[in-house]
């Protein structure tokens, strides 16, 4: 019985009790407050449109449907992770741009609207990033720099976005954060390439 009165037993028992009770409480709350991928998508839609909208999934890497969960990868540029058709005819993309600072990535939501057979980029917002340290330099003005471009024409002319080539038509730089701006440009270029390659069938 003296074993149960030792200081070290009391210490271990105390810490274990706290850990077990905390663990049980957190397990319940983790289940109750879990945010599903669908909720996250709806949040992104709300951020872009200011309200919730109905959508259908064209591509979603988190989808359980094997025919819709393969990302479209453009080597050295980026990947298209999600494509949703919104009920108003817009197409919403989530793309990841490669070659940011320290080879990190930037993931963006990009809203496109269709006029005839052409698509234009209407809005670009940040979803997340990896390894980037100067993201505060990528302000609203930078993201607005991608707006209203005729994506189809840009693809046909080969005038993709760049943060490095001053002579390029679609030059969208950020002073002091060129690598991060490059990754963001690559993310937008994924959409331009996708729309250019798939045309009216996007």
């Amino acid at each position, binding site marked *: 019985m003296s074993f149960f009165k030792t200081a070290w037993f009391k*210490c271990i028992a105390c*810490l274990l009790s*706290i850990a077990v009770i905390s663990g049980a409480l*957190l397990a319940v709350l*983790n289940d109750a*407050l879990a*945010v599903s991928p669908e909720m996250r998508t709806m949040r992104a839609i709300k951020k872009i449109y200011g309200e919730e909208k109905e959508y259908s999934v064209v591509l979603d890497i988190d989808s359980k449907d094997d025919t819709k969960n393969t990302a479209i990868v453009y080597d050295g540029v980026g990947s298209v992770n999600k494509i949703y058709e919104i009920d108003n005819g817009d197409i919403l993309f989530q793309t990841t741009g490669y070659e940011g600072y320290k080879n990190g990535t930037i993931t963006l939501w990009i809203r496109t609207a269709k006029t005839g057979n052409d698509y234009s980029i209407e809005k670009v917002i940040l979803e997340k990033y990896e390894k980037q340290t100067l993201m505060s330099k990528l302000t609203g003005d930078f993201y607005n720099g991608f707006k209203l471009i005729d994506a189809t024409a840009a693809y046909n002319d080969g005038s993709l976005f760049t943060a490095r080539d001053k002579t390029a038509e679609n030059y969208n730089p950020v002073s002091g954060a060129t690598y991060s701006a490059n990754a963001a440009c690559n993310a937008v270029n994924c959409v331009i390439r996708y729309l250019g390659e798939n045309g009216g069938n996007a």
Partner: protein
Amino acid sequence: MKTDFKKIAKDGVISSNPTLKLVLGTCPTLALTTAAMNGIGMGLAVTFVLIFSNVIISLMRKAIPKEVRIPAFILIIATFVTIVRLALDYFLPDIYESLGLYLPLIVVNCIILARAESFASKNGVLASAADGLFMGVGFTTALTLMGTVREILGSGAIFGHKLWDFSIGFFSSSAGAFFTYAVFIALFALITDKCSEKSKHKKANDKIKENA
């Protein structure tokens, strides 16, 4: 022993203000005060953790062996920080995103550990809850005021609403954070010193009048 709630309130908000007097929790203070809303979000998150961790630690103060009190405090604090994270991600995703890495780092916030060690582990539940509340109010007020000044000067906006196009980029930078913090500490010291001098004079005058 009767709890002096007035003293606890005065200590938390003014005489032992964790940010402006004790200079604790400087990491989130400097990093997150680029906007007033961030200050409020961080302040309220810390206040929640302070109140509940203080209450639990006070309740368990006789059951926790002194050899393992710090790991036990950290376990309790980490539990409440995780609850705040889950709740913010679910109910207030924008604030959750803007607080980013600094939200889990509340676990090692010295204000919370300091109050657990120096107050909650030695006082009753009500007093500990009041201490957590007023320390949190002091922290939230300081962060919100700093965030407001830096947002107005650094971004020309307040609570995300644009006021004018004029802005001084310096105030959004790390150097601007240190500068603003220094100015706030100096102003707070100046005001509290003047107030305590006034109250000393008043007390002395009252004593003279009494003697006369």
